[in-house]
């Protein structure tokens, strides 16, 4: 299970988004695969567009049982955006997403998403 601590939940284009992903699990089963990334994606009438801007370095071996593991990250948001947008046909959402795959499971378990805002400069 992850927790997210943003240093700044609202960031302007060209600036840095930083924070800390915190892992803690009392579960007996540790994940065999884990991934976390910063991306934007669209919602609304049109088909999905998405782009991953940054992959947070994360190895399953880092995720230890019964122990809090801090995974700090910092990423520069591109100057060209896009910005967070809520229109009539289109919504653009920026978020950090993390997921793990547990042993004997082929699908992504425990996908967590933490949205944040990207504003114009």
């Amino acid at each position, binding site marked *: 299970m992850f927790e997210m601590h943003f240093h700044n939940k609202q960031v302007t284009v060209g600036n840095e988004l930083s924070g800390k992903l915190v892992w803690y699990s009392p579960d007996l089963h540790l994940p065999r695969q884990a991934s976390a990334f910063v991306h934007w994606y669209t919602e609304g*009438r*049109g*088909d999905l567009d998405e782009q991953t801007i940054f992959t947070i370095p994360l190895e399953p071996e880092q995720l230890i049982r019964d122990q809090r593991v801090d995974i700090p990250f910092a990423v520069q948001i591109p*100057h060209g*955006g896009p910005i967070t947008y809520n*229109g009539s046909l*289109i919504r653009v959402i920026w978020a950090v997403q993390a997921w793990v795959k547990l042993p004997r499971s082929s699908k992504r378990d425990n996908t967590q998403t933490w949205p944040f805002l990207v504003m114009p400069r």
Partner: protein
Amino acid sequence: MSTLTTEELSKGRLVAPKRVPEGFLWVDAKGAWSEDNFLRSFIGPLVWCSFSFLFFAALLFSLLAAPNWGLFVMLLFISMFAAAGVGMIVKGLRWLTIISKFHPGEVLLASYPLRMGETFRLRFRRSLRRGYTQGSGEINAKWLCYEWVQYRQGTDIETKTHILWEQDLPLMTISTGTQVVTYETKLTVLPEGPPSLDAQHNQVRWEIHISVDVPGIPKDTAHFRFEVVPEAV
């Protein structure tokens, strides 16, 4: 919801302008000769017409030889396809007339990309390939921002638009004997944007549509799309 018609809609993604001594130059691709335009305007419609006319003729002869209601309904059905083919051919001929009379429209900007809240001067020009205008005409233009989305519905690809903002620009008269049609205007990007979005299926577009209407040449509209970056002036 205000939307744009297929005719009013520009195609594709943002195009980078050409750097020239006066600034940044865009050339309206639709107004220029290209194999792609030719294939779309003529070869496609010709293939369409060949098949639909063939079926139409076959059904017509069968109907004349042995009239019956079934054949008549089929003939009505196929005549819609034949009419659509004729429409496409007429549109192709119209395009050919325009590009044979006019060079493609061009737009010049002193600085680029645009920023939110920025006011800038735009210069449009379109020259006749030969001779001068035979009567007075007019130019009208529209500056607009709209959302454009594309989505798959079954096997079809659908497009939807929603106009966020539009401004009709002052009409300008073209006098008789003009060789190069020019239009200059001052435009402002709304301070609150939104900035451009140029993804594959979702776009926020800032465009100017400039229509040139002179006697003897079909009215033609050139579309130019600009990038507005997420930066306020």
